[in-house]
């Protein structure tokens, strides 16, 4: 019953008929995303990275973008980005399929649409 599980619990049964049974608009965008300016900047990325590494920050990394607190210096941010990229490249090395090149060769699709 994949996918059917949550149906009865969330959409159906006793919750029907009560106000906004899905609560979609309320839960979907977890507050901060809508209506706030997002500064897509180096500082944000660095700050996000800090939060990601702290246990509290891990669950709500998005919040960092709405902060207006201290802004790290450019070169410090640059260092952090470098470190982040290094972590990422380590991960790519880890997860890149062992037979990646063979997989790419055998990956043939029919056209669609």
């Amino acid at each position, binding site marked *: *019953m*994949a*996918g*059917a599980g*949550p*149906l009865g619990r*969330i*959409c*159906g049964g006793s919750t*029907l*008929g*009560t106000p*906004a*049974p*899905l*609560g*979609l*608009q309320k*839960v*979907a*965008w*977890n507050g901060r*995303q*809508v*209506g*706030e*300016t*997002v*500064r*897509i*900047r*180096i500082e944000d*990325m660095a700050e*996000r*990275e800090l939060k*990601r590494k702290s246990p509290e920050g891990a669950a709500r*990394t*998005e919040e960092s*973008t709405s902060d207006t607190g201290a802004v790290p210096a450019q070169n410090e941010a640059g260092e952090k980005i470098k470190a982040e*990229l290094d972590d*990422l*490249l380590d*991960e*790519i090395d880890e*997860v*890149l*399929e062992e037979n*990646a*090149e063979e*997989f*790419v*060769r*055998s*990956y*043939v*699709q*029919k*056209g*669609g*649409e």
Partner: protein
Amino acid sequence: MAIAKICGIETEYGIHRSNPGDNPVTSASLLINAYIAGLKRAQWDFQDETPGNDARGFVAGAGTPPEIDVHLVNAVLSNGARYYVDHAHPEMSTPECASPLELVLYDKAGEEIVRRSLALANSYYPGEGQLSVHKNNSDGKGNSYGCHENYLMDRNTPFARIAQQVTAHFVTRIIYTGAGKVGEEVRSGGEAANFQLSQRAEFFEEEIGLETTLKRPIVNTRDEPHADPRRFRRLHVIVGDANLSEVATFLKVGTTALVLALIEEGRLDGAGLLLENPVQALHQVSRDIGLARTVELVDGRYLRPIDIQWELYRFAREYADDGGLEVLGDEDAGKDLLRRWESCLAVLEEDPMQLANVLDWVAKLQAVEGYMQRHGLDWQDPKLKAIDLQYHDIDPAKSLYTRLRMERLVDSEAVAVAVACPPASTRAYFRGMCLTRFPENVASANWDSIVFDLGEGPLRKVPMTDPLKGTALHTENLIGQASSVEDLIERLGA
């Protein structure tokens, strides 16, 4: 006057099975069946489908049946989506959404459903050739498959005006909507591209047309509104990439919805944002990762793609000041969209690499370039294509996208809800809730009707020709209070 920009996305996923020689149609069926086997589901109803109708006023291939194989797996889900095998791909069509942010949520819910399907299918057939599924648009060997957007438009807006005025947006939006691609698949003469902004751009050969699989046009003329044809048209957009980035999807859908509203309002009349050679420009923009090369306009100007985006942004900003964000269904999301559009253009102008945690093509480019430097590789190294492909793998154990810690707009809990429940803001609500509440009695469904089987007597068809009717506001109490499906039909007066 612009009308509400109800929107949806259809995504064809790439599918691969490790047994060589396996039929992709079988693989796609296996994937989808693994998911829907346990669901009480309704069949898709093809009766009203007319993909051969051309918005320019004629019917292609009149007398021949539409290109749909009705024997393949085809289900409508409780969240209002359609999940089916199309050609040789699993395809997910989101339910109709009223705002671009809601559509981001349902696009991600669609991904999650495919992800669950994959886990189930591979657990059912361990060792027999595992499936892998990619949310991408080409196999790197010249075969492309689509990610189509759909926007509700006012029938009174002349199609020629839409086609003429939207093209510059389709060509230039790829600076933030592109999913990125290592190399090229279609030789166009000149220097070979190492990296392109868009997966799809190089497959487009025409400015306008009905085709989707060959001689692909930038503006597709399919005239199949899935709604009252006297009031509505549905602009079927085939020129976009499938995005994993939530921000890219949000911008793709939101900016396009706004540009279409500007066209309906006549606000782009005389703006002069018309390209001299749109197809060539699309190819050129995709290959210019420096975002510096200009394209020629009909009035003789030469502008960078970002200049054209800035002009469109200013029109949209002015429209928003006049109350235009109403068409996006959610004013807060509309305001956020404008701010993101502006800041995205500003950062792209300054240094695109700052968007490596935001946009797909930048994320992919950063990963590929970093990998090249670390291992001393050149652009021809096949490992780079492997990184490109694996970026799109939807299996969380393999996906590179999920490792890039991209900015998110919707949280996982909301996505889990959207896997099962329809959006409250369109007729998808009625479709999804009827399937949830009366799964045994829904004989079939499609975008603009539901057919009920009451057990005895004739089947009862409930038309839903207005996408804005059948919302939670209209039907929540009705469905909640109905004691049985017969009672529901009676209350509907159907």
